[in-house]
């Protein structure tokens, strides 16, 4: 009897080991070092920035919000001129509803159906947005540029490496996956107003990973803009033709506040 007990114990251990070996394992891969994720982000970001120097795309956009009425989705053309310019032209079979461009600190917006437009040389004075051109490129191309010191402080939150930094009076944060692609970016201005960009799906454009479906949430208003990009093409037109919105000589020039009111009323073709 006494000789049998150790044998039984050994057998039990062997069977238990065998069963445990056959059972499915939860595989937890080694977490990447923050520096490795940062390197992947920088490499992918450089590829996007190079492409964003002259890229055109078509966009479908939907704006939703509790305070907004039932707004239709719209089709738009998008032109990027990294590092500091972009243009969005909302159009349909019945013509162009709105043409918007930003470059550096300036912006221009023209509404052909109303023959009204606005041009601002220093958007920060009116909109409180410093350099809308570069900001728009960063948002649309996901080419955020955290400084090295911010990467050094970056830490994982759940599965994303989160890096935080300050630009002018704004606080920014970026959540990056282990593949080096950003999942979200957040900007909080000096007044505490939060705008968040969420990069939902990605696709290859040439050899660069590019955000295909994005959501932008403006928390103060609760409005969310969903943008889906398609039909990417390297630009063939001149930068002046692609990126500049011209307000015709006979058009009415408005103050920005009037443009906002006009856009709010614009529920026509």
């Amino acid at each position, binding site marked *: 009897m006494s000789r049998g007990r150790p044998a039984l114990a050994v057998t039990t251990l062997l069977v238990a080991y065998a069963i445990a070996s056959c059972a499915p394992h939860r595989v937890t891969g080694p977490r990447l070092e923050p520096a490795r994720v940062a390197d992947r982000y920088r490499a992918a970001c450089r590829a996007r920035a190079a492409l964003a120097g002259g890229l*055109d795309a078509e966009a*479908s956009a*939907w704006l939703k919000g509790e305070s907004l009425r*039932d*707004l*239709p*989705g*719209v*089709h738009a*053309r998008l*032109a990027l001129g990294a590092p500091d310019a972009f*243009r969005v*032209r909302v*159009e349909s*079979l*019945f*013509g*162009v509803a709105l*043409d918007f461009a930003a470059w550096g600190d300036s912006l221009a917006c*023209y509404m*052909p*159906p*109303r*023959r009204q*437009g606005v041009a601002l040389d220093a958007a920060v004075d009116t909109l409180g947005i410093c350099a809308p051109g570069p900001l728009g490129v960063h948002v649309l191309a996901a080419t955020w540029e955290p400084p090295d010191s911010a990467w050094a402080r970056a830490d994982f939150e759940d599965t994303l490496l989160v890096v935080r930094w300050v630009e002018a009076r704004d606080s920014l944060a970026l959540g990056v996956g282990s593949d080096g692609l950003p999942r979200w970016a957040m900007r909080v201005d000096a007044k505490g107003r939060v705008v968040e960009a969420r990069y939902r799906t990605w696709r290859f454009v040439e050899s660069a990973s590019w955000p295909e479906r994005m959501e932008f949430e403006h928390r103060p208003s609760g409005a969310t803009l969903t943008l889906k990009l398609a039909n990417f093409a390297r*630009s*063939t*037109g001149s930068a002046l*033709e*692609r990126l500049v919105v*011209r*307000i*015709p000589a*006979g*058009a009415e020039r408005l103050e920005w506040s009037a443009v906002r009111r006009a856009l709010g009323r614009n*529920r*026509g*073709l």
Partner: protein
Amino acid sequence: MTRVSGWWIVAALLLAPVLLGAGPPPPTASDTLESARGLAARLRSGGRAEAVVERRARDAFTGQWRSIRGRISLEPPDRAQLEFPASGERIALRAEGGEWLQPALGQMLRLGPANAAAARRWWELLLPGAGARFAEVRLGGGRFAVVRREEVAGGADTARVTLDPHGLPAQLEYHVEGGEQVAYRLSAWKFSRARGRSAFVIQAPESLQVVDLP
């Protein structure tokens, strides 16, 4: 009393066609633009016109022309329908409203009179009765400049119509300053019996969101 009632019945019967036909009288040749008279004559005998349409617009980004092909159907007094199979877009327009199916955006817009009128603003000049709203200038060679009499929000106020050798519209083009330069090429006209209003109403598929516009 009986005799009076009889008179009223006779009078009512005589007036009925007039009363039932209340509204604008049928357009006369003088109400129809000269550029649309060939089409109007064929519509009088059939009631419905269909054509292949190619929409060409100059791309503001590249300067090149972009085009999409489809079909257009017209029926007097105020009905137009455009279909573009490549995008799945369909637009039905009537005086009192219309529908615009946009599968790529997952929606159908239900247009009220204001937006339907904006969408019809150039197609209506091809229909009989447009003479009251447009003036035209013959440019020669089957080409006409057609000018809207009233200024309407929505861009261009002048279009050019070119007729084919049969006197039917072959091209309609306009330019919105700061907007688009657009040309619709029309070909392969066919005429048949009118199908009526129901052929110019689009029912929304359940999968699409319906958005009402004024």
